């Protein structure tokens, strides 16, 4: 068989230098010594239906078993941080929309929170509620989309994805009605939000939130007990607790490994200490747990939304004395972080007293959650790699920045 030579010639083959540039590879599994087998090198991506954007995994396969996997990214790199450092504080907000383009509201919040810490801005009561409402709607739509994508990766021909998008559309319509754009909301401002939401909008949101549990129920009926789903996800892509902590994995992925760490509870930023909600925890840390974390968190988001929509007070959304434009913070630095749907989204700002941030850093949860992709995927088949990657929930806009 001329298998080996064919592999080397093949169009998607990695260049011969791969071994040299990548070193021995720390995590490499040794191919089966007894049965001498040929290693097949496959580049999954950057143009691949299941890499969630332009993301590449350089995979070495023994049969269909993965013996090495190296994530490669940067295809979408635009040096977001440099752009923000060359612009005023306000001008960075629309750029944060484009980080994780599914969750612009939470991205705004993370950045705005960091600036508020850096300058010391107080936030009006009503704004805090609006922010919570927006963040939880965002979390809901992100999680529903993720579950859809995950099932799509598993080959469910788009049905769950379409159901997820059906509901997501309604949430995006709400975003558009208040902020003017469906995805690139650019809604939050330092110490406030750009415009107040109308009572009609709140009423509409209440009605939608009332309908959302029905959607989660439908989703669960469709999939929760599905034997194929369970067989495909249980015990696959296991992330042990210790590794998850050490690798700085955050968000639903961390909680699926059984670590109780939700920044909404830990930092109590905004007004999250006023709401009653629970933090679901997984036990096995496999793909199924990660999937279920998202489903359960959707329910908790609904609970928060119901409370917030009931309690939201009247009042101003922005202190007119707060300077939004032409901000010149004192020399210093601040790190602000929130629980974005993907994990801990942090913004680290250093001010040198000028109009532009001296250093603007995004702590992207997606990128850091990818650190342990190889550890999770070794020994799995290609099909499981795709599913495991799907359960990490990455958005390349944020990974590559």
């Amino acid at each position, binding site marked *: 068989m001329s298998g080996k030579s064919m592999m080397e010639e093949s169009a998607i083959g990695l260049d011969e230098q791969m071994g040299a540039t990548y070193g021995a590879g720390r995590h490499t599994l040794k191919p089966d010594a007894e049965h001498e087998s040929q290693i097949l090198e496959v580049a999954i991506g950057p143009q691949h239906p299941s890499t969630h954007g332009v993301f590449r995994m350089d995979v070495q396969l023994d049969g269909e078993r993965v013996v090495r996997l190296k994530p490669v990214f940067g295809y979408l790199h635009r040096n977001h941080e440099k752009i923000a450092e060359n612009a005023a504080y306000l001008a960075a907000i629309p750029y944060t929309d484009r980080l994780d383009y599914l969750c612009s509201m939470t991205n705004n919040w993370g950045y705005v929170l960091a600036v508020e810490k850096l300058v010391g801005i107080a936030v009006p009561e009503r704004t805090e509620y609006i922010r919570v409402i927006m963040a939880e709607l965002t979390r809901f739509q992100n999680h529903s989309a993720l579950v859809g994508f995950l099932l799509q990766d598993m080959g469910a021909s788009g049905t769950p994805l379409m159901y997820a998008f059906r509901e997501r559309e309604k949430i995006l319509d709400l975003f558009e009605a208040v902020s003017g754009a469906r995805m690139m909301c650019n809604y939050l401002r330092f110490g406030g939000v750009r415009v107040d939401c109308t009572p009609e909008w709140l009423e509409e949101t209440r009605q939608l939130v009332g309908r959302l549990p029905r959607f989660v129920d439908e989703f669960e009926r469709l999939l929760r007990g599905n034997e194929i789903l369970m067989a495909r996800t249980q015990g696959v892509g296991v992330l042990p607790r210790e590794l998850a902590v050490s690798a700085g994995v955050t968000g639903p992925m961390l909680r699926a490994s059984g670590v109780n760490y939700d920044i909404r509870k830990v930092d109590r930023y905004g007004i999250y200490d006023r709401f009653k909600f629970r933090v679901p925890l997984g036990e096995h840390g496999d793909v199924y747990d990660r999937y279920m974390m998202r489903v359960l968190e959707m329910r908790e988001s609904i609970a928060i939304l119901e409370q917030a929509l009931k309690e939201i007070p009247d009042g101003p959304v922005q202190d007119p004395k707060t300077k939004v434009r032409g901000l010149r913070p004192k020399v210093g630095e601040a*790190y602000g972080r929130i629980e974005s749907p993907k994990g801990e989204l942090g913004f680290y700002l250093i001010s040198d007293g000028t109009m532009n941030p001296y250093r603007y850093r995004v702590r992207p949860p997606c990128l850091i959650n990818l650190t342990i992709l190889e550890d999770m995927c070794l020994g799995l088949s290609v099909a499981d790699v795709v599913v495991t990657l799907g359960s990490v929930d990455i958005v390349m806009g944020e990974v590559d920045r």
Partner: protein
Amino acid sequence: MSSPSIDPVGVDVSAEAIRAALVKGVPGCEATVVENGSPSAQHSLLLDHEHAVEAATFLRDHAEFRLDFCSNVTGVDWPDKEVTEKVKVTKVVDGPDGPKEQQVEETRKTLIPGYLETVYHLFSMEKKHGPVILRLRTANRGEGNHLPSLTPVWRSAEFQEREAFDLFGIVFDGHPDLRRILMWEDFTDHPMRKDYVPPEEDEPVMDDGCAPGSSAEQGAAGQ
């Protein structure tokens, strides 16, 4: 000087307290508190290179601090600064009536060498406190751009240190897999440095449309 991040259990994780513990726990460790003037009051600790890994391990395993979660790792570029100051010097000046000592104002330029810095934001997942901020500084921005890697202590630093290597050019000694991460392998410069000059664009850029005299502008004007 209280940090805003005193956890509910009551462990003081302010920079001062950490410094005290470090000096006691890691012999020879030099830790300096770097003050932060902003209202966030997140003060940080500057560590020396030799004891950085040891200190990090100490903080991670310390029964009270348990800083097991290294959240954010990033580089900061502090370029060489030229400080111009006016100094009064006495000089011997040739006057009309012979040499004479005279007070002369002179501008003197001093070059303050820059450095690259990495900042680590630590939290504790177990104790739920933080942030504790560590800083490491390189000797200079040229050859002495080496820093000890903290990836052996916290795995989460792996990609982020690679990013700092890629974008800032900080070399982390002891990093298991130090390659470029966002830029491509053949790229030579470090784009996040303050003195970075982008290569000539071969693609139309945003200014093409707006800048006066550009082809698009002329086309529009010709209409």
